[in-house]
């Protein structure tokens, strides 16, 4: 595992499983979402080409605001095994 990477838990919209991915400190949220989607969308979750993907912290009420798309993992202060919602949104 690279020094700059952090394992996160991905709660991908419509998916059955919580997944585990390594993301880099320098990744922005679009990159994080893309890393997750590469292993999920078109495999177990149908693609939605007209939508974009947003990332937010998983919370009990499912209402955390999304991170800005260009915010990095480092700036978002994501910690080891932090759980993130990755979800479809209108472009």
């Amino acid at each position, binding site marked *: 595992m690279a020094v700059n990477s952090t394992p996160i838990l991905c709660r991908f919209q*419509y*998916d059955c499983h919580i997944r585990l991915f390594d993301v880099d400190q320098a990744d922005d949220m679009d990159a994080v979402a893309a890393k997750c989607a590469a292993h999920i969308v078109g*495999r177990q979750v149908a693609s939605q080409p007209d939508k974009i993907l947003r990332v937010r912290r998983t919370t009990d009420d499912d209402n955390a605001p999304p991170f800005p798309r260009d915010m990095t993992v480092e700036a978002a202060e994501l910690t080891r*095994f932090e759980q993130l919602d990755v979800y479809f949104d209108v472009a």
Partner: protein
Amino acid sequence: MALLERSEWYDLARTTNWTPKYATEDELYPADMSDPYGISTEEWETFDEPYKVTFREYVAVQREKDTGAYSVKTALQHSDYYDVADPAYLSMLKMHYGAIALSEYAACQPDARTARFSKAPGMRNMGLFAFLDEMRHGQIQLWFPHALVRKDRQFDWAHEAQHSNNWAVLSGRHLMDDVMMTRDVPTCAIMLSFAFETGLTNVQLVGLSEDAAKVGDHTFSNLITSIQSDEARHAQIGTPVIEIMVRNGKKAEAQQALDIAFWRVWRVFAILTGVPMDYQFPLEKRAMSFKEYMHEFVITQFQRQILDVGLDRPWYWDHFLDDVENHHHCQQCGIWSWRQTVWWNPTAGVGPREREWLEEKYPGWNASFGTYWDVVIDNILNGRDELAWGDSMTAVCNMCQIPISHRPGPEWRARAHQLDYEGRRYSFCTPVCKWIFGTDPVRYKDHHSIVDRMYSGEIEPPTFDNILKYMGCGEVSEGGRDAHDYAWIEAYRTQPQAAE
């Protein structure tokens, strides 16, 4: 006949407590082994085993059982049944034997703890029969699959699984080590005898036998019901223990033991039993759905027994009822998608007719689980095999060690329930597994799940290839592939409308 009836002498055979002189009572029966609850010896001596058996009766009855079980096998040995059996059915056998054979044998040790350390003499004797029973179950469930290892190397897992670090085995072993290998005598009686054996083995060993008989495998059907007849007897160790604890002001402790073990056993048994019943058996051979068996044997029969011995339904009962509707369906999704990580060849079991049946038995199945399979089916139909395999790691629960999953589709319910404890972040599949951790963190906190091992250096480097090797896939035998090599997808070509 001038022989005495059992009742004329049986009580003497269980009047064997004496007051020690050369050791203290606490040395002879240490609290960690015998009773951390501080109930008096006199109270334990009221233990009255409901299902009585003597040595003489035991060897006669058990000999007859074995004569029955082994003779069916001899008769069928040359029938080449397994050469023509549905590959999905063989997968069920591989999964069953790998998970069960050595686990049954492992139960000899906690039963021996009862035979040595129980303060109730009758209970000590019953513990003795229980370990003999479990030796039987271990041995007979090694002997039967051993005959199949020549036909198919995946049957080697019947012996090897528990020596491996396969994710499914880590899950089963964590359960066994928790509820039976590391518990004192009375707690183990509630967890193993009552929650496990009275509560949940019926569904596995009686329910599955009906489907196996319909498929034509009378060897297996007969074997597992014969095993269950032993379980039905020695499981009765639990009931009097609960009564004694309730009577001595330890109801809350007994309740907690039940609540922990029932959930833990359920999480594993739902996979071992639910997946075969609802996916692996051919549709026309299914007698009932897993859910219907659960209602008959657990939600009705066992719930009645819980209330009858003076305990309450586990606090999470509603959550459990919901889990009956989704947990094994989730795991079926995962096992099939990550089939390279298991030692059997999973069947998808989601042809158009099967989906109709699933929707009928589990209303709403198509709107949730169906969305997952729609994508899979579309990929296979269009020749995109490489997309029909799971290629990332899933998070696993730090209690049950099972991939954290929940109903897919519009409901989107999967979620890890997390806890930060002494600087480490733990993830759980449900609030129940998280609650169990909290009942005794010292017991649970040091364990590393397969995911933790990827980051601890134990699997180095943690590539998918290395993880597979670590789990024994490609080592003990090849890992799994689709049981029917996608033959089931043809039904969608003739009925394309069913796919979407």
